[in-house]
Protein backbone atom coordinates (compact mmCIF):
# COMPACT_ATOMS: atom_id res chain seq x y z
CA UNK A 1 0.00 0.00 0.00
CA UNK A 2 1.23 3.46 -0.83
CA UNK A 3 0.71 6.11 1.82
CA UNK A 4 -0.38 9.52 0.72
CA UNK A 5 0.92 12.63 2.48
CA UNK A 6 -1.98 13.01 4.88
CA UNK A 7 -1.86 9.34 5.93
CA UNK A 8 1.86 9.74 6.64
CA UNK A 9 1.23 12.86 8.64
CA UNK A 10 -1.42 11.12 10.69
CA UNK A 11 0.86 8.14 11.34
CA UNK A 12 3.71 10.41 12.44
CA UNK A 13 1.42 12.46 14.65
CA UNK A 14 0.01 9.29 16.22
CA UNK A 15 3.50 7.92 16.86
CA UNK A 16 4.65 11.21 18.36
CA UNK A 17 1.57 11.41 20.55
CA UNK A 18 2.10 7.84 21.68
CA UNK A 19 5.74 8.52 22.58
CA UNK A 20 4.81 11.66 24.45
CA UNK A 21 2.15 9.86 26.50
CA UNK A 22 4.37 6.85 27.18
CA UNK A 23 7.24 9.16 28.15
CA UNK A 24 5.05 11.26 30.45
CA UNK A 25 3.58 8.24 32.17
CA UNK A 26 7.03 6.68 32.61
CA UNK A 27 8.12 9.89 34.33
CA UNK A 28 5.01 9.86 36.50
CA UNK A 29 5.59 6.24 37.51
CA UNK A 30 9.23 6.95 38.35
CA UNK A 31 8.21 9.99 40.40
CA UNK A 32 5.68 7.91 42.35
CA UNK A 33 8.35 5.28 43.06
CA UNK A 34 10.87 7.94 44.12
CA UNK A 35 8.27 9.59 46.36
CA UNK A 36 7.49 6.32 48.07
CA UNK A 37 11.16 5.47 48.61
CA UNK A 38 12.62 8.87 49.59
CA UNK A 39 9.79 11.12 50.77
CA UNK A 40 7.20 8.85 52.40
CA UNK A 41 9.46 8.11 55.37
CA UNK A 42 8.53 11.65 56.53
CA UNK A 43 5.63 12.81 54.35
CA UNK A 44 3.70 9.52 54.52
CA UNK A 45 2.66 7.08 51.80
CA UNK A 46 -0.33 9.25 50.87
CA UNK A 47 1.59 12.53 51.33
CA UNK A 48 -0.35 13.71 54.37
CA UNK A 49 2.79 14.44 56.40
CA UNK A 50 2.35 11.33 58.56
CA UNK A 51 5.37 9.11 57.76
CA UNK A 52 7.12 7.07 60.46
CA UNK A 53 9.68 9.85 61.11
CA UNK A 54 6.90 12.32 61.94
CA UNK A 55 7.01 11.34 65.61
CA UNK A 56 5.56 13.41 68.44
CA UNK A 57 8.91 14.85 69.43
CA UNK A 58 9.85 16.12 65.93
CA UNK A 59 9.94 19.91 66.37
CA UNK A 60 8.44 20.57 62.89
CA UNK A 61 5.89 18.40 61.07
CA UNK A 62 6.53 17.41 57.46
CA UNK A 63 4.35 19.35 55.01
CA UNK A 64 0.97 17.80 54.12
CA UNK A 65 1.45 17.55 50.35
CA UNK A 66 -2.28 17.03 49.81
CA UNK A 67 -3.08 20.41 51.37
CA UNK A 68 -4.06 22.88 48.65
CA UNK A 69 -3.90 25.69 51.23
CA UNK A 70 -0.23 24.97 52.09
CA UNK A 71 1.01 23.93 48.68
CA UNK A 72 -0.45 26.80 46.65
CA UNK A 73 1.76 29.17 48.67
CA UNK A 74 4.75 27.66 46.85
CA UNK A 75 5.80 28.49 43.28
CA UNK A 76 7.05 25.65 41.08
CA UNK A 77 10.50 27.19 41.51
CA UNK A 78 10.16 27.03 45.34
CA UNK A 79 9.24 23.36 45.20
CA UNK A 80 12.18 22.51 42.96
CA UNK A 81 14.59 24.53 45.11
CA UNK A 82 13.44 22.98 48.38
CA UNK A 83 13.71 19.42 47.04
CA UNK A 84 17.18 20.14 45.66
CA UNK A 85 18.66 22.19 48.52
CA UNK A 86 16.49 21.26 51.53
CA UNK A 87 14.34 23.35 53.88
CA UNK A 88 16.94 26.10 54.16
CA UNK A 89 16.23 27.02 50.50
CA UNK A 90 12.76 28.34 51.37
CA UNK A 91 13.72 29.46 54.90
CA UNK A 92 12.01 26.39 56.35
CA UNK A 93 13.23 23.72 58.76
CA UNK A 94 16.38 21.78 57.81
CA UNK A 95 14.42 18.68 58.82
CA UNK A 96 13.50 18.79 55.14
CA UNK A 97 16.73 17.31 53.64
CA UNK A 98 18.48 18.26 50.36
CA UNK A 99 18.06 15.73 47.54
CA UNK A 100 20.15 17.53 44.91
CA UNK A 101 22.88 14.86 45.02
CA UNK A 102 20.42 11.98 45.15
CA UNK A 103 17.86 12.82 42.46
CA UNK A 104 18.71 14.24 39.01
CA UNK A 105 17.35 17.62 37.88
CA UNK A 106 14.75 15.92 35.67
CA UNK A 107 13.69 13.61 38.49
CA UNK A 108 13.21 16.68 40.70
CA UNK A 109 11.07 18.39 38.05
CA UNK A 110 8.99 15.21 37.70
CA UNK A 111 8.66 15.17 41.51
CA UNK A 112 7.38 18.76 41.44
CA UNK A 113 4.70 17.67 38.93
CA UNK A 114 3.85 14.73 41.18
CA UNK A 115 3.38 17.07 44.18
CA UNK A 116 1.12 19.30 42.06
CA UNK A 117 -1.04 16.27 41.34
CA UNK A 118 -1.16 15.40 45.08
CA UNK A 119 -2.39 18.87 46.06
CA UNK A 120 -4.45 19.33 42.87
CA UNK A 121 -3.21 22.90 42.95
CA UNK A 122 -1.04 25.51 41.24
CA UNK A 123 0.95 28.38 42.70
CA UNK A 124 -1.38 31.14 43.83
CA UNK A 125 -0.77 34.15 41.63
Amino acid sequence: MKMNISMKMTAIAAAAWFLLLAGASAFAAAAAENYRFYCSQCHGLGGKGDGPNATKNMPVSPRDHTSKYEMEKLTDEDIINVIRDGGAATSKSTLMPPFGRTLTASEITAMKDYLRRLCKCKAQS
Partner: protein
Amino acid sequence: MSQGQFSSASGMLMIALSFFFFASSAFAGAGEGKKAFDAAGCAACHQIKGPAKEKTIKDALAKKGPELWYAGSKFKKEFLGGWLEDPRPIRPMEFYSLTKTNQGNHPKLSGKDAADVAGFLMGLKAPEVKDSGIKPQENQRGRIIFVKKQSCYGCHQVKEKGVITGGLTGPSLAGAAERLSPDWVCAYLSNPRVFKPVKDMPDYAGILTDEEIRDLAAYVSNLN
Protein backbone atom coordinates in the same frame (compact mmCIF):
# COMPACT_ATOMS: atom_id res chain seq x y z
CA MET B 1 67.88 -41.92 45.07
CA SER B 2 70.48 -42.17 47.84
CA GLN B 3 69.65 -42.26 51.53
CA GLY B 4 70.93 -38.71 52.04
CA GLN B 5 68.83 -37.26 49.24
CA PHE B 6 65.75 -39.02 50.55
CA SER B 7 66.06 -37.68 54.06
CA SER B 8 66.68 -34.13 52.90
CA ALA B 9 63.66 -34.33 50.58
CA SER B 10 61.47 -35.61 53.41
CA GLY B 11 62.90 -32.94 55.68
CA MET B 12 61.79 -30.30 53.17
CA LEU B 13 58.39 -31.90 53.02
CA MET B 14 58.09 -31.80 56.80
CA ILE B 15 58.95 -28.12 56.85
CA ALA B 16 56.49 -27.40 54.07
CA LEU B 17 53.77 -29.39 55.83
CA SER B 18 54.33 -27.83 59.23
CA PHE B 19 54.30 -24.40 57.58
CA PHE B 20 51.00 -25.29 55.95
CA PHE B 21 49.49 -26.39 59.29
CA PHE B 22 50.78 -23.29 61.01
CA ALA B 23 49.30 -21.03 58.36
CA SER B 24 45.96 -22.82 58.31
CA SER B 25 45.64 -22.80 62.10
CA ALA B 26 46.13 -19.04 62.09
CA PHE B 27 43.06 -18.76 59.86
CA ALA B 28 41.05 -21.52 61.55
CA GLY B 29 38.78 -18.93 63.25
CA ALA B 30 37.85 -17.30 59.96
CA GLY B 31 37.45 -20.66 58.18
CA GLU B 32 35.15 -22.00 60.88
CA GLY B 33 33.36 -18.68 60.92
CA LYS B 34 32.64 -19.01 57.20
CA LYS B 35 31.36 -22.56 57.78
CA ALA B 36 29.12 -21.43 60.63
CA PHE B 37 27.91 -18.49 58.49
CA ASP B 38 26.92 -20.87 55.68
CA ALA B 39 25.46 -23.50 58.03
CA ALA B 40 23.21 -20.92 59.73
CA GLY B 41 21.86 -19.74 56.35
CA CYS B 42 23.09 -16.17 56.85
CA ALA B 43 23.87 -15.84 53.13
CA ALA B 44 20.14 -15.99 52.34
CA CYS B 45 19.81 -12.40 53.54
CA HIS B 46 23.35 -10.97 53.46
CA GLN B 47 25.71 -10.24 50.56
CA ILE B 48 29.32 -11.05 51.56
CA LYS B 49 31.09 -10.38 48.26
CA GLY B 50 31.46 -6.86 46.91
CA PRO B 51 31.01 -4.70 45.00
CA ALA B 52 27.48 -3.41 45.63
CA LYS B 53 25.03 -4.82 43.09
CA GLU B 54 21.86 -2.76 43.45
CA LYS B 55 21.13 -0.30 40.63
CA THR B 56 17.46 0.54 41.09
CA ILE B 57 15.01 1.13 43.93
CA LYS B 58 13.54 -2.31 43.20
CA ASP B 59 16.98 -3.91 43.69
CA ALA B 60 17.38 -2.11 47.03
CA LEU B 61 13.93 -3.15 48.24
CA ALA B 62 14.60 -6.77 47.21
CA LYS B 63 17.47 -7.00 49.75
CA LYS B 64 16.46 -8.99 52.83
CA GLY B 65 19.19 -7.62 55.06
CA PRO B 66 22.06 -5.13 55.00
CA GLU B 67 25.10 -6.14 52.93
CA LEU B 68 28.09 -7.40 54.92
CA TRP B 69 30.81 -7.40 52.26
CA TYR B 70 32.58 -4.52 54.07
CA ALA B 71 31.61 -5.58 57.62
CA GLY B 72 35.26 -5.72 58.74
CA SER B 73 35.74 -2.06 57.81
CA LYS B 74 32.39 -0.93 59.26
CA PHE B 75 32.06 -2.57 62.66
CA LYS B 76 34.09 -2.71 65.82
CA LYS B 77 35.28 -6.24 66.55
CA GLU B 78 34.12 -6.14 70.18
CA PHE B 79 30.62 -5.20 69.03
CA LEU B 80 30.06 -7.90 66.39
CA GLY B 81 30.57 -11.03 68.50
CA GLY B 82 28.30 -9.73 71.26
CA TRP B 83 25.59 -8.63 68.85
CA LEU B 84 25.49 -11.97 67.00
CA GLU B 85 24.89 -13.70 70.34
CA ASP B 86 22.29 -11.18 71.46
CA PRO B 87 21.04 -9.24 68.41
CA ARG B 88 19.09 -6.20 69.67
CA PRO B 89 17.37 -4.09 66.98
CA ILE B 90 19.66 -1.57 65.24
CA ARG B 91 16.99 -0.26 62.87
CA PRO B 92 13.83 0.81 64.76
CA MET B 93 11.70 -0.28 61.76
CA GLU B 94 11.75 -3.62 59.97
CA PHE B 95 14.28 -3.55 57.11
CA TYR B 96 12.98 -1.00 54.52
CA SER B 97 9.45 -1.08 56.00
CA LEU B 98 7.53 2.15 56.58
CA THR B 99 4.81 0.50 58.63
CA LYS B 100 6.21 -2.38 60.71
CA THR B 101 8.49 -1.92 63.70
CA ASN B 102 11.52 -4.17 64.13
CA GLN B 103 10.41 -7.24 66.11
CA GLY B 104 13.95 -8.05 67.22
CA ASN B 105 13.75 -11.54 65.71
CA HIS B 106 17.19 -11.68 64.07
CA PRO B 107 18.72 -15.22 64.14
CA LYS B 108 20.96 -15.77 67.18
CA LEU B 109 24.27 -17.62 67.34
CA SER B 110 25.78 -19.53 70.28
CA GLY B 111 28.90 -18.09 71.93
CA LYS B 112 31.48 -20.05 69.92
CA ASP B 113 29.74 -19.62 66.56
CA ALA B 114 29.22 -15.92 67.28
CA ALA B 115 32.95 -15.44 67.94
CA ASP B 116 33.94 -17.46 64.85
CA VAL B 117 31.46 -15.65 62.57
CA ALA B 118 32.59 -12.29 63.98
CA GLY B 119 36.17 -13.30 63.12
CA PHE B 120 35.12 -14.19 59.59
CA LEU B 121 33.12 -10.95 59.12
CA MET B 122 35.95 -8.79 60.49
CA GLY B 123 38.09 -10.14 57.64
CA LEU B 124 35.72 -8.62 55.04
CA LYS B 125 37.41 -5.29 54.35
CA ALA B 126 36.71 -2.63 51.74
CA PRO B 127 39.78 -0.92 50.24
CA GLU B 128 37.75 2.33 49.99
CA VAL B 129 37.82 2.65 53.79
CA LYS B 130 41.12 4.37 54.52
CA ASP B 131 42.84 5.10 57.79
CA SER B 132 41.37 8.59 58.28
CA GLY B 133 43.00 9.41 61.60
CA ILE B 134 39.60 10.60 62.88
CA LYS B 135 39.19 10.35 66.64
CA PRO B 136 35.67 9.89 68.03
CA GLN B 137 34.88 12.98 70.09
CA GLU B 138 32.13 15.41 71.10
CA ASN B 139 33.00 17.55 68.07
CA GLN B 140 31.05 20.83 68.29
CA ARG B 141 31.11 21.56 64.55
CA GLY B 142 29.90 18.02 63.89
CA ARG B 143 27.16 18.42 66.47
CA ILE B 144 25.89 21.63 64.86
CA ILE B 145 25.64 19.91 61.48
CA PHE B 146 23.90 16.90 63.01
CA VAL B 147 21.28 18.76 65.04
CA LYS B 148 20.91 22.06 63.13
CA LYS B 149 22.39 22.49 59.68
CA GLN B 150 21.31 19.10 58.31
CA SER B 151 19.05 17.73 61.05
CA CYS B 152 20.36 14.20 60.67
CA TYR B 153 18.26 13.26 63.70
CA GLY B 154 15.17 13.53 61.45
CA CYS B 155 15.79 9.88 60.46
CA HIS B 156 18.20 8.66 63.14
CA GLN B 157 17.64 8.04 66.82
CA VAL B 158 20.18 9.45 69.27
CA LYS B 159 20.35 9.66 73.04
CA GLU B 160 19.96 13.24 74.29
CA LYS B 161 20.35 13.66 78.05
CA GLY B 162 19.57 9.98 78.55
CA VAL B 163 16.39 10.05 76.44
CA ILE B 164 16.13 8.34 73.04
CA THR B 165 14.77 10.76 70.44
CA GLY B 166 14.82 11.18 66.65
CA GLY B 167 13.41 9.59 63.48
CA LEU B 168 12.86 5.89 62.92
CA THR B 169 13.75 5.00 59.32
CA GLY B 170 17.56 5.08 59.61
CA PRO B 171 19.67 2.78 61.79
CA SER B 172 19.72 4.07 65.37
CA LEU B 173 22.91 6.00 66.06
CA ALA B 174 22.46 5.71 69.83
CA GLY B 175 25.42 3.50 70.68
CA ALA B 176 27.24 4.19 67.39
CA ALA B 177 30.40 4.63 69.48
CA GLU B 178 30.47 0.91 70.32
CA ARG B 179 29.36 -0.21 66.89
CA LEU B 180 30.88 1.84 64.07
CA SER B 181 34.42 2.58 62.94
CA PRO B 182 35.02 6.33 62.46
CA ASP B 183 36.98 5.53 59.27
CA TRP B 184 33.94 3.79 57.81
CA VAL B 185 31.52 6.58 58.80
CA CYS B 186 33.80 9.05 57.03
CA ALA B 187 34.13 6.83 53.93
CA TYR B 188 30.37 6.22 53.81
CA LEU B 189 29.52 9.93 54.02
CA SER B 190 32.22 10.90 51.48
CA ASN B 191 31.61 8.11 49.00
CA PRO B 192 28.16 6.65 49.76
CA ARG B 193 27.58 4.99 46.40
CA VAL B 194 30.44 2.55 46.85
CA PHE B 195 28.62 1.05 49.82
CA LYS B 196 24.96 1.80 49.05
CA PRO B 197 24.35 2.95 45.46
CA VAL B 198 20.60 3.18 46.14
CA LYS B 199 19.29 4.00 49.60
CA ASP B 200 16.65 6.11 51.31
CA MET B 201 19.20 8.40 52.96
CA PRO B 202 20.15 11.39 50.77
CA ASP B 203 23.76 11.69 49.55
CA TYR B 204 25.60 14.50 51.36
CA ALA B 205 28.86 14.17 49.43
CA GLY B 206 29.18 17.45 47.50
CA ILE B 207 26.72 19.16 49.87
CA LEU B 208 29.01 18.95 52.89
CA THR B 209 32.73 19.73 52.53
CA ASP B 210 35.39 17.12 53.34
CA GLU B 211 36.16 19.04 56.51
CA GLU B 212 32.48 18.98 57.58
CA ILE B 213 32.29 15.25 56.87
CA ARG B 214 35.32 14.61 59.09
CA ASP B 215 33.73 16.65 61.89
CA LEU B 216 30.47 14.71 61.49
CA ALA B 217 32.26 11.35 61.45
CA ALA B 218 34.06 12.26 64.70
CA TYR B 219 30.74 13.32 66.26
CA VAL B 220 28.67 10.33 65.05
CA SER B 221 31.26 7.75 66.03
CA ASN B 222 31.26 9.18 69.55
CA LEU B 223 27.48 8.85 70.12
CA ASN B 224 26.54 6.73 73.10
